[in-house]
């Protein structure tokens, strides 16, 4: 086995048994990046030099015989919407092309404290808005399974980096499926935790009531390790919560009840995807798991609800990129680098900076959000959507009275071709149809590789009760071994 294909535990064992050094481990990944990243284009910024000096420090600890944490020396890639101190952080937007992160996000700090080595920052759709990584302000990322196809999005660079063995694991963020859908397209594991379980401090806000950070890994065990490392209440994020203590009993397969929502097997789903997911469900049934058909009656309204609430929050969160405080600015100064692009008034500074800095998808969503919040439309759109959100939450609450977890496809199709959906925003939005409900309801969900259609991966989504990441991780591990 190549070193780039190791699991976290195997890599850790190799390091402490001195089968290879941290520097050697990082070298293997940096060579791989050098060779493959030109094709895959997973990274926006590389951090290789720092990674080596960090690796040397870990090696010194090992040589001195010190006990090192499980994640020490393990290489990681971080989605470029999460701050890593003193490294450029762009959210794949031209408006932040030269922005240097002034501090570490809490999840990054937690990983650094364990000794994780950061290889670089990964590409994404601008400000996490998109499902293909084609809306990056810089360049698209390609799917390692088929370079003509998208890796999914918005955490497409992170998923492609893990799938292409350019990093051992990665962090992504998920507002409507942005960890799970690319994990599905790239054949890797992606977890969106319960809302609030991972601190959002240092994550550039897209839609604050929906955003969550989570791991993208090759195995469910790796996913669990990274999740354990980054979760926890944080005084810097007032919406973060500690996972309430849940009895950590081992799942008994024969007692397990798994729901399959009839509304998720709809027209428009790829036949191959349906076949793979149904065969996954049969595999659980053969183990003695009780499979129960459930109903989530408001499913058909989830996407519309999501596009109102999310864009409303986007329009307010992205107001901060105004050319005054940081990032691109059309203010006439020597420092801004626009000696001739002067604006007459403050309003001009806003208009010109935001026109030049934001891509089309960002502008589309900002305008839609502004519209649904504007006078005369607030009640018809925004308030109504918040009420439907309540109904969607209740659907899940009711279903979880009879089941322990829910199985669905992660996405209705495997990875599509670059350019296939870029011209029609609404078609692109439909790739999130199975994932957005979890963000609206705040539930945890994991996408696990379930099979291939013509060499293209398909993911199975396992949905859990709030704060029961433990349950879906265990179910994911069982499924991995089938």
């Amino acid at each position, binding site marked *: 086995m190549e070193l780039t294909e190791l699991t976290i535990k195997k890599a850790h064992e190799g390091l402490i048994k001195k089968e290879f050094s941290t520097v050697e481990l990082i070298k293997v990944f940096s060579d791989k990046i050098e060779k493959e990243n030109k094709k895959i284009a997973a990274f926006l910024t590389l951090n290789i030099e720092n990674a080596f000096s960090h690796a040397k420090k870990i090696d010194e600890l090992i040589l001195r015989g010190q006990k090192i944490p499980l994640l020490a020396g393990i290489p990681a890639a971080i989605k470029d919407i999460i701050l890593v101190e003193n490294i450029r952080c762009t959210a794949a937007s031209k408006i932040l092309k030269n*922005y*240097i992160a*002034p*501090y570490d996000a809490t999840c990054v700090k937690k990983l650094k404290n364990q000794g994780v080595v950061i290889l670089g920052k990964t590409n994404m759709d601008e400000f996490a808005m998109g499902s293909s990584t084609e809306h990056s302000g810089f360049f698209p990322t390609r799917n390692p399974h088929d370079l003509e196809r998208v890796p999914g999005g918005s955490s497409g660079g992170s998923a492609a980096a893990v799938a292409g063995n350019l990093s051992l694991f990665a962090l992504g963020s998920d507002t409507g499926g942005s960890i799970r859908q690319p994990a599905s397209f790239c054949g890797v594991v992606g977890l969106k935790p319960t*809302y609030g379980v991972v601190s959002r401090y240092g994550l550039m806000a897209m839609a604050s*009531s929906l955003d969550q950070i989570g791991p993208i890994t090759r195995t469910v065990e790796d996913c669990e390790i990274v999740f354990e490392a980054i979760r926890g209440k944080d*005084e810097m994020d*007032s*919406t973060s*919560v500690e996972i309430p203590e849940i009895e950590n009993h081992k799942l008994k397969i024969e007692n397990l009840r798994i729901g399959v929502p009839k509304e998720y097997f709809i027209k428009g789903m790829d036949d191959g995807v349906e076949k793979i997911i149904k065969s996954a469900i049969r595999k659980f049934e053969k183990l003695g798991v009780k499979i129960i058909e459930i109903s989530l009656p*408001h499913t*058909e*309204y989830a996407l*519309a609800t999501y*596009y*109102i609430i999310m864009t409303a929050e986007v*329009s307010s969160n992205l*107001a901060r990129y105004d050319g*005054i*405080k*940081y990032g691109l*600015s059309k*203010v006439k*100064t020597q*420092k*801004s680098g626009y000696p001739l692009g002067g*604006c007459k*008034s*403050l309003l001009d*500074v806003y*208009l*010109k900076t*935001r*026109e*030049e800095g934001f891509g089309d998808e960002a*502008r*589309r969503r900002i*305008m*839609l959000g*502004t*519209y649904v919040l*504007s006078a005369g439309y607030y009640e018809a*759109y925004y*308030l*109504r*959507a*918040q*009420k*439907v959100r*309540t*109904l969607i*939450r209740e659907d899940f609450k009711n279903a979880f009275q009879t089941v322990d977890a829910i199985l669905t496809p992660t996405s209705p199709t495997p990875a599509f071709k670059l350019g296939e959906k870029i011209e029609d*925003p*609404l078609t692109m*939005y439909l790739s999130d149809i199975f994932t957005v409900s979890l963000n*609206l*309801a*705040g*539930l945890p969900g994991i996408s696990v590789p379930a099979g291939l259609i013509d060499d293209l991966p398909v993911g199975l989504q396992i949905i859990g009760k*709030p704060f029961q990441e433990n349950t879906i991780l265990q179910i994911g591990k069982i499924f991995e071994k089938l």
Partner: protein
Amino acid sequence: MITKRDVQHVAKLARLGLTEREAKKFQKELSKILDFIERLKEVDILKVEPTSHSIKVENIMREDRVKIEGLEVRKKLVEMAPEEKGGYVRVKAIL
């Protein structure tokens, strides 16, 4: 349906510069998305309370105290502004 004037109005509210051609393009695209979200009108929401967060959120208070360790970050933050003066961010006159 959203008119081109609506688009231009919303763009101004959102402080987004827009060319004529772009206004036309966004009018088409936004109309299509708005048609799609119209379907929420079918849902009976008469007795339903709105949800803003999936978890219960409360105001969290802390002591109003200057953090010494924050001074370095403060310096970094101010230095990022295109125009600064004496430790403050400078902007054009508003009135």
